[in-house]
């Protein structure tokens, strides 16, 4: 398996080298959105005399800079592409290969991240300097961040695939995607650290998977949670990952059974 993956990575890196500029452009998207909300919250905090609900200007900056990194590392886009693959008949040849399509997607996903991480790090460092960020990170925060980010990525990736499989039955997965994106926009901690949301919305945040993808690794790395809380949140991530994995297995098997390629 390791040998297979090494080959896949080499091939994918070569393929990706053709699209260097595009990669940088997509990166731009992942930086601008958090910067916008950072600027807005910094303004709110400034209007309230420097801090809102325990978050100072420097905390907001730290929160959103870490979130940009987390958002980048956990990004998954298969739910957008899968529909096209089905419609254009590109799925069928992939199914004939001995390797599950999932593996190709994993490698493609990772290669994009490896190749864009250095420029992203530079941009984030500049942002961090402009806003004079503050982190309360202890050493164990960094240690816990490792499983948290891996789980977050796996969860995001599998959730994306569950949605992608909807294309076996639905013609407009795009609408489902918009629905998911906007729900995530509200409940993942993107528009605000969830501690600042009304209690009812906070409860929804904890119940849905989105907070475990973006908010949890962010709060852990910036040092915003206690040790016990961090562990509890990581358990939450694992539970949601299990649910998504199970849902994917069922949906994939059922979907394939009734899938007939376009034109077949």
């Amino acid at each position, binding site marked *: 398996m390791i040998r297979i993956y090494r080959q896949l990575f080499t091939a994918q890196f070569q393929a990706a080298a053709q699209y260097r*500029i*595009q990669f940088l*452009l997509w990166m*731009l*998207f992942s930086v*601008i*959105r958090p*910067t*916008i*909300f950072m*600027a*807005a*919250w910094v*303004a*709110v905090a*400034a*209007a*309230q005399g420097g801090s*809102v*609900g325990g978050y100072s200007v420097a905390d907001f900056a730290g929160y959103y800079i870490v979130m940009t990194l987390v958002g980048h590392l956990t990004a998954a886009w298969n739910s957008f592409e899968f529909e096209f693959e089905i419609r254009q008949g590109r799925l069928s040849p992939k199914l004939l290969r001995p390797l599950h399509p999932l593996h190709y997607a994993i490698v493609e996903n990772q290669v994009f991240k490896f190749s864009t991480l250095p420029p992203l790090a530079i941009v984030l460092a500049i942002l961090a300097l*402009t*806003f004079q960020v503050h982190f309360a990170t202890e050493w164990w925060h960094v240690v816990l961040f490792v499983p948290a980010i891996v789980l977050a990525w796996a969860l995001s990736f599998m959730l994306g695939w569950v949605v992608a499989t909807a294309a076996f039955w639905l013609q*407009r997965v*795009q*609408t489902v995607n*918009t*629905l998911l994106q*906007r729900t995530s*926009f*509200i409940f993942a901690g993107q*528009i*605000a650290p969830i501690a*600042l*949301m*009304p209690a009812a*919305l906070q409860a929804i945040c904890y119940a849905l998977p989105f907070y475990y993808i973006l908010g949890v690794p962010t709060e852990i790395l910036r040092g915003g949670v206690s040790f016990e809380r961090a562990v509890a949140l990581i358990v939450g991530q694992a539970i949601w990952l299990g649910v998504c994995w199970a849902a994917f297995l069922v949906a994939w098997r059922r979907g394939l059974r009734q899938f007939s390629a376009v034109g077949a």
Partner: protein
Amino acid sequence: MIRYLRMFRMFALSELQFELEYRLNFIFVLLEMVLVVGTSVGAVLIMFAHTTNLNGWTLPQMLVLIGVFYLIQGGNALLFEPSFQRLMEHVRLGTLDYHLLKPVNTQFIVSVRHMRVVRIPDVLLGFIVMGVGLAQLGARVGPLDALLFALALLCGLALVYSLLLVLVTLSFWFVRVENLLTIFWAFTDAGRFPVDLYPGWLRFTLSTVVPIGIAVTAPSQAIASKIGPVEVALLAAGTVVAFTVASAFWRLGLRNYTGASA
């Protein structure tokens, strides 16, 4: 002028006919847009649960700003974007010849020939959100403010149009202009908050190179009496300059166009 308006109506009707084949699609797009606009407003409401002003902007003023944002973005997606997309295709394939042969202003026809009628809900939702904000501002909106607002809004649309025209004109020389457009879209997102919120470099970008920030903020400032006739006059002058330069650049590009078989 009347002739151009009549032509514009005909373009709209033909696109509408085409789009009516996909009526269900309309409903889905509407649903998505309600969701997008709803969550944007929700985000701002959460912020205003913690403060009464955002860098000097009150909640009703922010609602107006969000409305204007979707108005400009929607207007752009409805009108210019689809036409310009086709234009780039025409340049690449050499089929721009057909447009050049028509006895009308070429800039007019490449700018508004195609519409994406499904984006009308964007504009409508923008109006609704803006209307809610205006209703809350209530009596404080005088006739002068309203006039300045309308003028600034027109300028905003014209500024965005001018930038897009320059970008697509580049396709006469370069084949891959899409990348530049991607940068434009990435920055568009930042228009949903007033530009005065952003750090210097971003504010500068949004007021000059990618004028979406000023296009959205200026009308909202006008309605909130944050800027007066002088500023709007300056904005109008700037817009005229931008439009003239963009049109001149377009004609320069056109002269560079050699057609399909040449």
